[in-house]
């Protein structure tokens, strides 16, 4: 953007809503995953300006301006994703949506809540719980993740969006969305997508490449009468997998597990490892699964009994109730062992639930072949499992860190091999867009052409991977580069 354009934008939006200072622009040039400088050079990830729209009117003015002047817009929530979706590849304007926050309307009889896009999940959950209500699902980054950020992120692809806490009982995050307010690339502002002739699902899980979400109306429900966590230890991860597969029949609210390598990382980080009481002595747990059940009094007790039977039939051992509550309370702290790295590098992908045992076997095999300790964190989705295999790494050891990045690709390929997909496209996984979006991929490509013919909405992401030179990077080049780096990993 040249100076004249920036000046015009300042006049249009007022100086309070736009920043062109270096100190602000560098903040919007990254997400949670550190990208080595060498790789970063192929993207213009630092925006020319950052805009924080405060109202629907301002958002609309911004989008019209961008459309008229062909300026790329990159929507940004809290940037708690790791696939490069929330920062630019072509510069332009970073649209920080966190000024659009707050509860707009609670409809207690219709059981819906309308919120501004940049409100974080925790705020919504607290607001609802004071009124005896709650959400159907929310991400385990709820303390910071914005509502629109989670719903826009392509995790499970267009029309499904994310998996989170509550998904194993209530479905994909998109399933509880009733309506959206969206600013389209044409400059048109749809106050209600539902009544506009467009489909709400198109804007969910499409990485913000079709429009910027400004408001979200979500279904809400009464707080359950009972909701309690139970934790179990398994000596053998295969038995844990078998138990997880079986307990899906109980429609648990949340299921999370960590294998012994991951618990080892926690130990290395100085964290307390839950203890089992075996043979009258305390022993650190080996592979832990925490299962949260909910329901009314009668169904809850029945389900708890069934759960205990399932676990016992697979040789699992129940941990003390206070351990289960502590694990549940830590549900938002999935990265608390990070200091053992200090970086965690790895993959995040889905696999069909039926493949759980196999996929863990393959990950462990990969670890052995590469002489790497891979820790596994997994959560249950709707009919799939989300796995986050990770290794401890250190970005200060630059060459080693870069070579280890090849692991991300290998894990992604592994997920495809077992019938799953990387968890979201964004920038770096856009090579897997067909797998991420599945049957919806062609529809998304078509919609992109229709709704954003000049390609100003989060360009270079989601369905293609662009560099700063406006040329898509072909998948084979990515495979070649990562393969090359991978050669250095073993014994590195």
């Amino acid at each position, binding site marked *: 953007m040249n100076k004249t354009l920036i000046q015009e934008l300042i006049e249009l939006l007022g100086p309070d809503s736009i*920043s062109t*200072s*270096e*100190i*602000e622009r*560098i*903040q*919007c040039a*990254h*997400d*949670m995953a550190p990208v080595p400088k060498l790789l970063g050079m192929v993207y213009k990830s630092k925006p020319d300006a*950052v805009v*924080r729209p405060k109202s629907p009117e301002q958002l609309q003015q911004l989008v019209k301006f961008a459309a008229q002047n062909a300026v790329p817009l990159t929507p940004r929530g*809290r*940037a*708690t994703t790791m696939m490069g979706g929330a920062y630019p590849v072509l510069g332009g304007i970073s649209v*920080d949506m*966190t*000024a659009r926050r707050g509860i707009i309307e609670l409809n207690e009889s219709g059981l819906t809540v309308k919120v501004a896009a940049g409100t*974080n999940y*925790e705020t919504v959950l*607290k607001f609802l719980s*004071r009124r005896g209500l709650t959400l159907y699902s929310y991400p385990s*980054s709820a*303390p*910071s993740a914005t509502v629109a950020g989670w719903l826009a992120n392509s995790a499970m692809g267009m029309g499904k969006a994310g998996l989170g806490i509550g998904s194993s009982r209530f479905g994909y995050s998109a399933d509880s969305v009733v309506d959206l307010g969206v600013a389209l690339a044409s400059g048109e502002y749809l106050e209600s997508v539902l009544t506009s002739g467009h489909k709400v699902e198109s804007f969910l899980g499409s990485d913000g490449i079709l429009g910027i979400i400004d408001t979200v109306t979500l279904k809400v429900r009464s707080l359950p009468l009972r909701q309690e966590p139970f934790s179990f230890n398994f000596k053998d991860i295969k038995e844990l997998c078998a138990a997880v597969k079986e307990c899906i029949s109980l429609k648990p609210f949340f299921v999370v597990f960590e294998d012994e390598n991951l618990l080892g990382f926690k130990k290395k980080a100085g964290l307390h490892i839950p203890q089992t009481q075996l043979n009258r002595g305390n022993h650190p747990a080996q592979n832990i699964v925490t299962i949260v059940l909910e329901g009314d009094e009668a169904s809850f007790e029945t389900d708890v009994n069934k759960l205990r039977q399932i676990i016992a039939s697979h040789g699992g051992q129940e941990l003390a109730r206070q351990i289960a509550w502590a694990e549940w309370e830590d549900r*938002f*702290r*999935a*990265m*608390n062992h*990070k*200091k053992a*790295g*200090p*970086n965690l590098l790895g993959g995040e992908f889905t696999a069909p639930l039926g493949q759980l045992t196999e996929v863990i076997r393959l990950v462990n095999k990969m670890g052995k072949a590469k002489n790497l300790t891979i820790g596994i964190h997994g959560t249950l989705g709707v009919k799939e499992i989300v796995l986050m295999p990770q290794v401890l790494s*250190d*970005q*200060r050891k630059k060459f080693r860190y870069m070579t280890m990045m090849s692991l991300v690709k290998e894990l992604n390929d592994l997920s495809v091999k077992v019938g799953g997909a990387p968890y979201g496209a964004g920038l770096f996984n856009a090579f897997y867009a067909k797998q991420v979006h599945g049957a919806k991929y062609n529809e998304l490509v078509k919609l992109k052409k229709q709704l954003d013919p000049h390609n100003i909405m989060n360009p270079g992401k989601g369905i293609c991977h662009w560099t700063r030179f406006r040329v898509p990077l072909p998948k084979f080049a990515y495979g070649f580069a990562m393969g090359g780096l991978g050669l250095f990993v073993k014994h590195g």
Partner: protein
Amino acid sequence: MLQERLGTIQDEIYTCAQCAYCTATCPVAELKGWESYGPRGRMHLLKLVLENDYKANKELAERFYVCTTCSRCEKVCQTDLPLIEIWEDVRSWLVEDNLGPLEPHRVIDASVAEFHNAFREAAANRDAWAGDIELSRKGEVAFFVGCTSSYKMQKLASDSVRILQAIGDQVAVLGEEEWCCGSPLIRTGQRRQIKGLVEHNVEALKNTGAEIVVASCTGCFKTIRDDYPHWYEKKLPFKVMHISQYLAQQIKNGRLTFTQPINQKVTYHDPCHLGLHAGEYEDPRAVLQAIPGLELVEMHNIREESRCCGAGGGVKAGLPDIALGLARTRAEEAEETGASILASCCPFCKTNLSQAIDNEKINLIQKDITELVVEAMGI
């Protein structure tokens, strides 16, 4: 050089996950909006400086001075980073590089060096607040008055001592021998005088013969209790208590009783230095709840989730508009409870919240807990 100094905390810098839990809870980040004003943004800046991708400058320094050191961020950090220590260390390194502190903070440093208090007041007038209260230099309980109560909010000092004397304590105060506790200097990264202040005050307090030191300023309380042992390099020869803790104890053992009801709805603001920093949430509430007729109504954000009044960390002196902006939000939250009194127990909270209440014409009266205790004791 800041960059070199950052090498000593590089493990923390690289551990930061950039998850933004801190920023999502930070009252300053909420008020200012822009990412660089929040804790995650600052951690990112530190990394960029460390890696030579950003050069420290006055703009960066301002981002570090905008923080009230309330510690909300530290409480939610999922990688357990010692954020307050980081904020204060970085400020001290900015001072070394002459990029900090802010101008009003320099004035405080000069005043403490010359007058031993933050307000350029005569040291000889340290006891002026007492009026006709008889003071002693020896006692079983030493009352550390604090610069603000000594010179600016004298009722807080006199109420505190009147309560202690009324329950029969032998109370010592230091008079001219009380020097600034050092809190405004430590919080703003100005460390050159701290060792001397600490050693002087510890010796003076020791000389009173007291086993317990009581402070009604939460800044003094936290500084003496938590910062002094580091600078003194030894265990302190006395126990440090905030007056709300001390009074709660006296209620429990029957020494403090109330005769006058206060038939009012009262809401309580947790001062950061007492609540979030020292984990004391119950005792001030216990004191309020022991007062007959008083109905305690709570705000949404209390205890571990309490919101800062905005005055801490040198923000009231250095960036008063931000301090007032934060106080407005807190006072509005208090108003929503329907209370008629907003109680707290810190002179900084009192000053800032009272100003916001006046400016915004909020229907509340701000009172320190000691003021309510004096009323309820009928003294």
